[in-house]
């Protein structure tokens, strides 16, 4: 439909039947069509030149549905930033495409939704909202604020009043779905827009016209300006998104308004960045430029703990951070609100549970370079850090906004490598960082599993063992000097009195052979050499056993030491008849009875004990290392060392530490009591 502008009479064409407002390209009045004709809503402001890959009347594709961007508006956020809102005409509906800091959100109006009052909402709150398909999803409030329409162009699907301010709440479900509740001036019924966050690749934008003559493409064109205070050159690398800049020469904070600078005031602390502004570095998400630097501090129990933040920028991606604290580095990516589930002192993200490490007020100490928000020295927020090394999830809250981010630990060498090794020895890490991985982290699981498996195997083999007795006899160990009978014609090979030969007994193959002794001793010793002889093959297996048992009463207290029993085990022998030979000695003058028993298939607890010991040594070494590593980490936590997650290793080591501490305390108490005496 073609009509004449009510203000200037120029031709105004409404290309789409369901659009309400068209901006007159001559006088820049917003022309509204109604059933009574056309009227002007007033003159709209000139557009601020912003870099954007989106263009008016550009074609796009979302999934299988195509659209055309038929209009756009620039909106000034209450906090100062400018975002662009594009109006996408689909075949049967309108889509609202918001563009902010390299992010894109395509939403659609959902009619008839019952919406909460804006006064009842707060950041982090969960709200059930209907979607386009009638289903309900849980969204989390990320921001509550106001925005004002500025420049407008093209055709609009609603009555846009120039310079009008509206209240809104932004929400996200953490799965890529996004919602905005437009409360207007709060006197009207709110409107719900629900959709999803998209990438530029998702939108497949092609063609179109520049929004305004001379507007640029998204090439990240930087702008060189002079500091209005000292005239030193200032390079704005993201001029259309930066709202604040700090002059590195005179240390003045500057307001950035559509690429123009104005002095705000002198900063009390000068920031000195080791990585200069403008340096390019290659990280996991590609090449990024350092555009800003600030020093912040966490205020804990009256002490300030400073840390550095480098603001990185990539046009297609937006902003990221590189954070350095105590010489430890982390690469920081934003996380959509709602993607993280917070449960008391834990949070869950992507199926991983993270433990609360620190809660502290955060304050901006000094700044350098440019920033996409109206940063100021002394700016405060409240931070919560949750850790599961190498990840740390941080929540920063202000009164009306909540931001979550994922901080991934980077080794110093990796940071240096990211900057092409231009900076050597960027920092020397001190202590253990909240998200620093334990170098022995992979060791605990196999060791614990092996330890548990050994115990289970021991229990199984112990319960399966069914020892059988092959021979049992009680003999006497003669007292005094053993006597060897004379060799006679009838006894050419006499057996000495301390030697005993058993009758033949049967042993089976495949089972071990235990020879056990029990001597009845009273302040005496006994020593036995035992051999089993295969009567068919002559094979001999020899073991020995030593026993001694002493007891008495000293100062009215009875005591005893030693043992009357001894045993030894031989591995499996060939099946057949065997004879047991014993050669015995003892220290007394009287005969001492000795019970001897030969058993097969006995459980070898000793071998299990050795295996547990062999495994237990590294278990303990790595356990102590992990325990001390985690203790050093959690000592810096607001939760204290007790906040450290418990593992089998740390539990064992903690138990050892507790027992040893108890022993030390008891010994000290004894020492003190004896010194008192």
């Amino acid at each position, binding site marked *: 439909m073609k009509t004449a502008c009510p203000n200037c009479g120029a031709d105004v064409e409404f290309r789409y039947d369901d659009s309400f407002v068209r901006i007159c390209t001559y006088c820049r009045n917003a022309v509204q069509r109604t059933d009574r004709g056309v009227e002007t809503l007033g003159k709209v402001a000139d557009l601020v030149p912003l870099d954007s890959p989106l263009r008016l009347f550009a074609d796009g594709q979302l999934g299988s549905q195509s659209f055309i961007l038929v209009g756009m508006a620039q909106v000034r956020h209450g906090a100062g930033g400018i975002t662009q809102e594009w109006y996408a005409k689909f075949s049967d509906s309108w889509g609202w495409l918001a563009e902010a800091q390299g992010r894109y959100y395509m939403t659609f109006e959902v009619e008839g939704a019952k919406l909460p009052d804006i006064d009842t909402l707060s950041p982090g709150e969960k709200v059930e909202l209907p979607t386009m398909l009638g289903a309900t999803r849980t969204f989390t409030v990320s921001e509550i604020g106001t925005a004002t329409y500025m420049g407008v162009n093209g055709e609009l699907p609603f009555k846009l009043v120039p310079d009008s301010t509206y209240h809104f709440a932004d929400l996200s479900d953490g799965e890529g779905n996004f919602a905005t509740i437009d409360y207007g001036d709060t006197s009207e019924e709110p409107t719900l827009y629900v959709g999803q*966050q998209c990438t530029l690749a998702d939108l497949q934008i092609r063609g179109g016209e520049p929004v305004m003559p001379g507007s640029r493409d998204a090439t990240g064109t930087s702008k060189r300006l002079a500091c209005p205070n000292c005239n030193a050159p200032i390079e704005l690398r993201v001029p259309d998104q930066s709202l604040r800049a700090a002059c590195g020469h005179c240390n003045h904070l500057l307001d950035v308004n559509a690429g123009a600078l104005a002095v705000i005031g002198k900063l009390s602390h000068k920031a000195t960045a080791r990585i200069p502004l403008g340096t390019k570095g290659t990280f996991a998400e590609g090449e990024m430029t350092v555009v800003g630097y600030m020093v912040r501090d966490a205020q804990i129990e009256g002490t300030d703990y400073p840390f550095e933040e480098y603001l990185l920028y990539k046009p297609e991606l937006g902003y990221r951070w590189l954070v350095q604290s105590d010489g430890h580095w982390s690469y920081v990516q934003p996380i959509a609100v709602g993607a993280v589930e917070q449960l008391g002192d834990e949070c869950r993200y992507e199926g991983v549970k993270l433990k609360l490490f620190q809660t502290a007020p955060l304050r901006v100490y000094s700044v350098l370079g440019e920033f996409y928000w109206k940063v100021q020295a002394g700016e405060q927020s409240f931070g919560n850090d949750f850790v599961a090394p190498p990840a740390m999830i941080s929540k920063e809250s202000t009164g009306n906004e909540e931001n979550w981010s994922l901080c991934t630990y980077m080794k110093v060498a990796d940071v240096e490598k990211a900057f092409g090794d231009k900076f050597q020895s960027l920092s020397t890490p001190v202590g253990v960082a909240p998200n620093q991985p334990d170098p022995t982290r*992979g060791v605990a699981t196999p060791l614990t599993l092996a330890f548990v*498996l050994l115990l289970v195997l021991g229990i199984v083999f112990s319960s399966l063992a069914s020892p059988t007795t092959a021979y049992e006899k009680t003999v006497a160990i003669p007292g005094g000097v053993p006597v060897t009978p004379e060799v006679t014609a009838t006894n050419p090979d*006499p057996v000495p009195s301390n030697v005993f030969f058993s009758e033949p007994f049967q042993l089976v193959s495949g089972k071990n052979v235990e020879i056990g002794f029990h001597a009845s001793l009273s302040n005496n010793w006994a020593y036995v050499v035992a051999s089993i002889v295969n009567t068919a093959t*002559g094979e001999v297996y020899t073991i020995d056993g030593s026993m001694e048992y002493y007891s008495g009463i000293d100062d009215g207290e009875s005591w005893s030491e030693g043992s009357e029993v001894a045993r030894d085990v031989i591995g499996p022998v060939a099946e057949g008849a065997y004879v047991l030979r014993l050669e015995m000695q003892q220290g007394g003058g009287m005969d001492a009875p000795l019970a001897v028993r030969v058993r097969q298939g006995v459980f070898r607890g000793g071998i*299990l004990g050795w295996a547990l010991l062999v495994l237990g040594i590294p278990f303990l070494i790595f356990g102590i290392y992990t325990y001390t590593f985690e203790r050093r980490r959690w000592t810096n936590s607001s939760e204290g060392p007790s906040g450290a997650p418990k593992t089998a290793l740390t539990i064992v080591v903690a138990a050892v530490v507790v027992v040893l501490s108890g022993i030390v305390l008891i010994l000290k108490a004894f020492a003190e009591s004896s010194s008192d005496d």
Partner: protein
Amino acid sequence: MTDETKSESAARPPDRPEMPKTGKRSILTMIIIGFSVIVVGGYTALAVTQRELGGADKDEIPGSVRSSPGGYRSYSYWHSGYHGGK
């Protein structure tokens, strides 16, 4: 917009970065896994076969001794072949 558009366009939503992996197994971890396997495997082998590490002295009485008067009870054999005692 339909569910189809959504599934086609959103594999991993923006602002939902992947949790960092803990990385590949270190050499130390591989050594510990090997060590654990040897210890558990060694214990299992010993428990199943009932063999002993070290164990008894093994000897053999010569056939000539066994066929002589007294056989394996031969004093001279044990006397010359054994030097134990405390």
